[in-house]
């Protein structure tokens, strides 16, 4: 029973992504994955010629067999299992490695700089539980429906922003000195952490480099990264949107640019962030050569 639920989750996951992309574009590919998934569900072993498809198929198979939640995958465990499986299946490790490597990099970036701040801002205030989500549509209740329409069609908003004072005071000397003491301690701690992270990063990229050595993927990627980096440097502004770096509107270019940007972020040349995860706009901040 539990197993079935998770499998459905994987299919939902795919369908959800399908709903986000254009009809013609990548939908056929997603359809393809859904079919693939249904076949494995029926006990059919995956045998696909395209190496890229095969490596993805294995990823799905793993998620299903290991009862992983597709919305919340522990990438560390996943990578270990995935590479083991890929080896067993004699999958082209270059492609497989690339998938894991990119996933890892993104995860590392997130855990380095984002997770800490996210924890801090998380509020404990939770007036609702999942059980509170209305099952019927908002349209089905007359009052709710008319309220919504009223609000949308009003010339002004029903809520007024109150006017309060915005006064602030100067920082006191005590606060300055306390801040200095804290800053020193925090900076020391940060540097210790940063050293550990650097060593871990170096170890990982060494591993990945070995895996990708001499492949066509590596060559292309390096070239792409170079081009994107040059583009970023041509912008007078420090912060730009990822779309600023794309010439055409195609998904393929966007993915190529995103990959390059992730590499650059990994090298600390740029900072990549979203105001909202996962569908917010992606911003890139150049950090110079320093």
């Amino acid at each position, binding site marked *: 029973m539990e197993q079935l639920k998770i499998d459905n989750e994987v299919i939902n996951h795919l369908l959800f992504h399908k709903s986000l992309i254009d009809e013609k574009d990548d939908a056929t590919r997603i359809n393809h994955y859904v079919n693939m998934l249904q076949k494995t569900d029926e006990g059919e072993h995956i045998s696909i010629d395209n190496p890229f498809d095969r490596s993805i198929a294995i990823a799905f198979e793993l998620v299903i067999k290991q009862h992983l939640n597709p*919305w919340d995958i522990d990438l560390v465990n996943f990578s270990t299992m995935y590479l083991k499986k890929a080896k067993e299946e004699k999958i082209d490790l270059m492609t497989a490695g690339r998938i894991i490597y990119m996933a890892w990099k993104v995860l590392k970036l997130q855990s380095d700089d984002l997770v800490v701040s996210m924890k801090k*801002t998380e509020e404990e*205030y939770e007036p609702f539980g999942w059980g*509170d989500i209305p099952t019927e549509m908002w349209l089905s209740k007359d009052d709710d429906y008319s309220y919504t329409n009223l609000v949308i069609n*009003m010339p002004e908003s*029903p*809520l*007024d*922003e109150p006017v309060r*004072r915005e006064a602030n005071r100067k920082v006191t000397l005590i606060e300055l000195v306390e801040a200095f003491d804290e800053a020193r301690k925090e900076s020391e701690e940060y540097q210790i952490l940063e050293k550990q992270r650097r060593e871990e990063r170096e170890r990982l990229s060494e591993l990945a480099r070995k895996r990708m050595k001499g492949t066509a993927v590596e060559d292309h990627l390096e070239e792409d990264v170079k081009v994107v980096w040059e583009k970023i440097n041509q912008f007078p502004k420090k912060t730009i949107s990822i779309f600023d770096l794309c010439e055409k509107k195609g998904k393929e270019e966007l993915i190529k640019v995103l990959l390059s940007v992730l590499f650059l972020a990994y090298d600390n040349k740029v900072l990549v962030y979203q105001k909202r995860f996962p569908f917010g706009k992606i911003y890139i901040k150049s950090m110079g050569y320093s």
Partner: protein
Amino acid sequence: MGKDEKRLVESILFSASKPVSINEIKENTGITPNKIKKILNELIEDYSVKRKNETSMEIVKAGDKYTMQVKKKYIDSSIMIAKPEINSNLLKTLTLIAFHQPLKQSNLRRMIGVKAYDHVDELATMKLIHSKKHGSTEMLTTTQLFPEYFGIDSTKPEEIKDFLIKKVSGKLNNIE
């Protein structure tokens, strides 16, 4: 002196520039929480009844906190000097989220169209709403800051809803 304590609490409300809790007032004045509560109620009454025509400010309960702000009647002129932060379309979206909460992002999308995503972004950045993953969509609720920010005397969703209904009918009556 009782009278002086009242003035002390008033001066805190004036200087804070944001809603303050009873605890914060206690920390800054040393007055006991019970006494502070009594003083706050007196102050609310003083401003809204006794001195009604002799002041352009009011003291209100905002969520679990208290604040001094300009009376609605005088907002139009003073808003120019204090610069509001939220435009009226965004305020409407916020109203809808507060009214229907917990509201699925996909339903908000159905109500107001694609701008829903940008608005959710902005409101979340302002910490006025929470957005939490729920399966394939996001569940939207207002945060604790919401009633504080707008001077709403409740943190309960049902009471916030009542407040919002009153607001809409108030505005509609003003227009006519």
